[in-house]
């Protein structure tokens, strides 16, 4: 497992003006599955990995346009933690947000084949996510 909490997220917002939001308890999240969270108007997918690392990405699936990323299957590809989109099964790295396998599809017009990642911290069993 090569992911750590501190790892800078690829497309994450600037770290200076982070506003952290308390989202839920770690125990509210299901091990090795995703859950959706609503932060203001922003929908976020939270994934609880086997070692209780939590990763947050956009909930929007770039290939279907639906807000469903949290419902994909969590796994690994060559040791890298991944999520597979539940609609058309693209596979994304949860470390970088990059799409590792487009499954032969193209993203919806105007969308990039990658997931925006948001900074996450688990403090005293409470999950905090920073969105802008």
């Amino acid at each position, binding site marked *: 497992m090569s992911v750590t909490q501190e790892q800078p997220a690829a497309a994450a917002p600037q770290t200076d003006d982070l506003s952290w939001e308390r*989202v839920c308890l770690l125990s509210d999240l299901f091990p090795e599955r995703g859950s*959706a*969270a*609503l932060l203001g108007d922003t929908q976020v997918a939270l994934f609880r990995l086997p070692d209780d690392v939590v990763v947050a990405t956009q909930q929007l699936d770039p290939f279907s346009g*639906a807000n469903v990323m949290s*419902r994909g299957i*969590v796994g690994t590809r060559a040791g890298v933690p991944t999520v597979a989109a539940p609609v058309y099964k693209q596979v994304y790295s949860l470390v970088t947000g990059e799409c590792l396998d487009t499954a032969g599809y193209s993203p919806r017009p105007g969308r990039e084949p990658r997931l925006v990642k948001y900074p996450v911290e688990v403090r005293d069993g409470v999950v905090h996510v920073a969105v802008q």
Partner: protein
Amino acid sequence: MDSSGESRRLVVVGGGMVAQRFVEALRARDTAGTWQVDVFAEEPRKPYDRVALTKYFEVRDPEELTLGDPALWDDPAVTLHRDCAVTAIDREARTVTDRLGRVHPYDELVLATGSNAAMPPIPGNDLPGVFVYRTIDDVAALRGWVEQKREAGTTAGGFVKPVRGAVIGGGLLGLEAAGALKALGAEATVIEFGTHLMGVQIDLGGGHALKRLINDKGIGVRPQTATSAMKPHKRTGHVGHLEFGDGGRLDVDVVVVATGVRPRDELARTAGLEIGERGGAVVDLACRTSDEHVHAIGEVACIEGRCIGLVAPGYAMAEVVVDRLLGGEATFPGADTATKLKLSGVDVASFGDAHGRTEDAMEVVWADPAAGVYKKLVLSDDARTLLGGVFVGDAAPYASLRPMLGSQLPGDPGAFLLPEGGGGAPALELPDDANVCSCNNVSAGTIRAAVTEHECTDVAGVKACTRAGTTCGSCLPLVKKITNTELQRAGITVSNALCEHFELTRAQLFDAVRVADLHTFTEIIGRFGRVPEGADGPGRGCDICKPVVASILASLGNGHILAGEQATLQDTNDHMLANLQKDGTYSVVPRMPGGEVTPEGLIVVGEVARDFGLYTKITGGQRIDMFGARVEQLPDIWRRLVDAGFESGHAYGKSLRTVKSCVGSTWCRYGVQDSVGMAVDLELRYRGLRSPHKLKLGVSGCARECAEARGKDVGVIATEKGWNVYVGGNGGFTPRHAQLLAEDLTDEELVRTIDRFLMYYVRTADRLQRTATWIQDVEGGLEGVRKVILEDSLGIAADLDEAMARHVANYEDEWRAVLDDPEKLRRFSSFVNAPRTADPTLAYVPERGQRRPATDEERASGVIIAGPKLEVRA
């Protein structure tokens, strides 16, 4: 096009197999559109697969015999005139006249008029009840006759007097016809004038073995018997008995004459073309007749001094003429007359010089008279070069030896004849020019090139690319072998590994989990997972292996699919116990076993759909689908459905979906069995059974087949005596008709047969492999499946029965179990920090009185009628 820019006119007389191939090949190659083709067919239908004619008794649907891509006949450069025989050719004027008196000009003319069934001049050959066996109309009339005779012979008390059939002629066709009579429920006796059956193809020794096999099928054989007359029944005037040269007699209700074919050269004759000694339009190796603008192909052509009654040489002639018409120089490559009898359960094949007529030829024979096995190779005098062969009772060596015709055999020829496992025959490496598929004239080299040059990576690809194995299919095992060898050679691993986490196939993993008695993913990947190079563990699985393991665990009975670690393995559909739709909402399908639903049930479904604003549609599986349910609504919807007595329909699972039925004998005037009752029983028995792919069943109450059961993985069709069961059908991308597995079963036998079939499939199929392809791949094909299920050839039947009994006993409604468990219910939250808030981005527009998701354009233009919540009245 020619210099004037006009297309040239090509007229094809005859709409049979060879004409079809000719037009197909011409359209594929004539990219410049040089030729405008008119095809005149005497029969009232598109060209069909005559070789598969006997299949008509089973499928009863002429469409099943369709040849090639039917779109060929929509091509603007092709006009097919059906039911429109050509009656005359005027070679001077270069025109033909059709039966309606219309005259059509041609630049080039192709005769593909085939043959007629020969009718020997036996007195009484025109009596009602005497049939030939050549066209769909012939077999349809024969079937009607047998059915009518059987009905007439059935007493009010249900006693059925057998219909007595005779086939005159013991060749390939006669044996096929005798098999067809048996399949129609008639008795059959084959009358053969010569010393033994299939005298053209096999020698006397083979004939003896064959007679035994045919007798074992319940078919009588009278060799060395001349039929001197057919006599009418006194009262009916229908054919009543046969009289033989030796003074014997045989009572009959139906006679099929299969004594050979005559080329249909009547047009050629009256047009003054040269005719062969024994008929047929004489052609040269370019397939040109004595008139350079008239070509003859197929059975009507007399080539190298004879007419050939097989389709492969006809196809070769078609290709030659196409090439010539496009300016090529092709010549007829010589006839491949290898044949294989298409009679289920009787293995007979011969090729090359089967009778050992070559000078100094040597014969190597292996015979086991008790088992009805006779195998012979004909070799050159040095015992090396293969000249021909005969196989009776075990044609396994045929597919790989036939292409070696004329080549040197490696090692001891006898080794090829020993029973399988009896003495390792050397591996055959076919030369590139060996003809593998004689129907479509595809060589081993062409198959290899499909892999090396055209980048085909599997047998399906090679078939599509080369057409090998697409006609009679007998060469498929060989095609597969060559393809896989070539793939390996090209360094393309024919990997059956599930994914990067498991080297095993699904079937192997299933067995491993079952035998090792493992119950969690962690145990399974720890024990059988692959550790990638440089990694310290096997990883945590992926979207491929996790659902496979989930399905295996479910099939083996490990409790609820959301229990414990299993919940992490489920695809979103199984995880939410509903079907994900494009906008991220789900559809909900309650079970309606056999498509049966009470008025009260319908009202509840209607109310639920109305109250939650769901779009409703009737599915192909005879139940109701409700669309647009949000994650957080699913438990509320199901609470109401469960309270009204509904349960999960498993529409979301790779599992049994529905058992479709027609209304059956309880209401229908024609039904012979209670199809709805049986469908309900089957659906309740197999509900919740997880499988490699979705499973659909169907039950029809009579042979009219209104439930379309033969389009299902398991199709059950009622007969007077019980049930016939068909397996391996499906709709979808590659539709398949199910094939007959067993006949006239009692209720109990039917259930046991399906139990075993499904369990065997669940255990041994690949991931996402439907029953149709599984049957193709599994050891021994359909026949192998039949042996495992009906004869317990692997000794696993009791185990399969027990596994199914366990499934039935452990069934619980998945949705009810979720509603009873707060921990599982927690999964149905829209947002972890706002569990009952609807996804604010959902948007809908009205259509035909219901709602559907808004398109991007509609969202942009603001015509949205409703967000996620407005219409909800609950």
